[in-house]
């Protein structure tokens, strides 16, 4: 793998950049792999990467029905935070955040992780209580957060209107080391590193069936032929239900459309991520200058990658109320992604009724931030059969009533 660096770029500049090699090999499926990961989004690629890096398992294929990183990895608002309330959530998201800090160096690919800070506004007494509780929990979970005053809020985000009028800002939960990253780069960086380890990333390869022998998976049928494997990992956000159906089991999941928006680019006006959950709006400014905005999710099952417009309206009106100076800014485009919502709105990283088949899904609206941690833990689960980071997220929790409910904190997952 040719190393990336400023020097390399300078050297290539002199020869018209003819020397750059492919970021990842063009691969055709082999007859058999130790591990097949279905889904070349961030979570699938990260899983493959850590299977190789942590457990030396490199005879791995990552199958993608479209193009790698083309699902939710490439259509989210790139927020990275770990200020969750419940222990299992805080553990996996904080592990993820920590991995993000060094990801560019690990992958030799600039994923532009920018720890610019994530601020969750408290705009009701109830939210204040919820965030204070979260701050207490985080302190014991090794997650650096702090409940800050309205004055501190205004200092960090000058464009905010504190006085409301409807929902005055009473404070905020502040995670200074949260931030954003370049979503495409995360997928591309992992893909490049996986390919360099000899793994096959096979695009335009849709899984059409799952081969079983009793309660064991033996391989998959794909649009590029049958492929055998010892272990199968399903990591297909937005389509988990469909894949599970092929494997013969059902999941506690409903797929809905979630929308995001970006504005025209303007010069920098906001350096951190602001989430206003009471009014349902959250926003950051990309390095390009666009205001990147998260919209609401539809309440009904939907596989069309377009949501309903009224969510865009609700979000925009909330943001104008919170940041009045945005009113004359223009929205450039909005789009939808399909997210898997579980029964308790927390993800599933679990064994399945099939012995050697594992599933990683249900990240809902907050999957991007979890990519490295999810890959780290899921790789361990697939390699060893259990993993501290993932054990609480098993499927059986729904039968036992052992939920991981984050909505109990005022903050909702994004």
């Amino acid at each position, binding site marked *: 793998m040719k190393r990336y660096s400023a020097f390399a770029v300078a050297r290539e500049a002199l020869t018209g950049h003819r020397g750059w090699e492919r970021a990842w090999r063009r691969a055709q499926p082999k007859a058999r792999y130790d591990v097949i990961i279905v889904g070349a989004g961030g979570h699938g690629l990260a899983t493959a990467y850590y299977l190789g890096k942590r457990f030396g398992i490199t005879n791995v294929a990552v199958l993608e029905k479209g193009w790698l990183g083309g699902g939710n990895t490439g259509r989210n608002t790139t927020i990275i935070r770990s200020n969750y309330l419940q222990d299992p959530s805080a553990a996996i998201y904080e592990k993820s955040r920590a991995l993000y800090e060094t990801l560019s160096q690990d992958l030799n690919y600039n994923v532009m992780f920018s720890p610019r800070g994530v601020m969750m506004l408290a705009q009701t007494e109830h939210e204040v209580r919820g965030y204070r509780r979260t701050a207490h929990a985080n302190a014991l979970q090794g997650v650096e957060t702090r409940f800050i005053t309205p004055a501190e809020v205004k200092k960090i985000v000058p464009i905010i209107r504190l006085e409301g009028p409807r929902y005055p800002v009473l404070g905020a939960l502040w995670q200074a080391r949260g931030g954003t990253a370049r979503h495409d780069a995360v997928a591309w960086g992992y893909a490049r590193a996986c390919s360099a380890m000899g793994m096959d990333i096979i695009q335009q390869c849709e899984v059409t069936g799952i081969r079983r022998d009793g309660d064991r998976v033996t391989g998959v049928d794909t649009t590029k032929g049958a492929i055998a494997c010892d272990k199968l990992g399903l990591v297909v956000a937005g*389509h988990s239900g469909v894949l599970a159906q092929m494997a013969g089991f059902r*999941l506690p999941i409903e797929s809905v459309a979630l929308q995001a928006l970006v504005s025209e680019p303007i010069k920098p006006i906001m350096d951190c991520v602001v989430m206003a959950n009471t009014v349902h709006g959250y926003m950051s400014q990309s390095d390009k200058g666009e205001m990147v905005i998260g919209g609401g999710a539809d309440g009904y099952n939907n*596989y069309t990658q377009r949501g*309903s417009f009224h969510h865009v309206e609700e979000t925009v009106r909330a943001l104008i109320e919170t940041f009045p100076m945005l009113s004359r800014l223009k929205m450039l485009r909005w789009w939808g992604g399909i997210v898997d919502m579980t029964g308790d709105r927390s993800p599933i990283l679990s064994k399945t009724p099939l012995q050697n088949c594992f599933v990683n899904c249900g990240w809902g609206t907050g999957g991007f931030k979890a990519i490295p941690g999810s890959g780290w833990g899921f790789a361990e689960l697939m390699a060893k059969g259990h993993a501290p980071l993932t054990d609480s997220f098993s499927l059986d929790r729904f039968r036992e009533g052992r939920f991981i409910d984050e909505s109990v904190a005022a903050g909702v997952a994004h």
Partner: protein
Amino acid sequence: MLILTCPCCGVAADEIELAPGGQAHIARRGPDSTDAAFEEYLFLRDNPRGVHFERWRHAMGCGKWFHAARCTATNEVFGTYPAQTTEPPQEIRDRIAERRTDQPKDSRA
């Protein structure tokens, strides 16, 4: 932005008058049910990429619940019907059969 015709009041209601209620025709499981049956009742869903029988309430209208048969990949609607039933009416099934060829695909973005 869906339009569903409320079978209770007859209004062709815009989505913003409606409240979605998830998969329809799920039989309630009570105290005598097994853990597995109860989990299925509360959590396991078909979540099909195709025809979905679902619950809606005309919340900002007559206030009545009703059912709809809708394709989750194209938003084609095969009909709406009153909620006081344990399975889709025959005419809805027939309409699905006649209109449905294969499973439509949505655009890969």
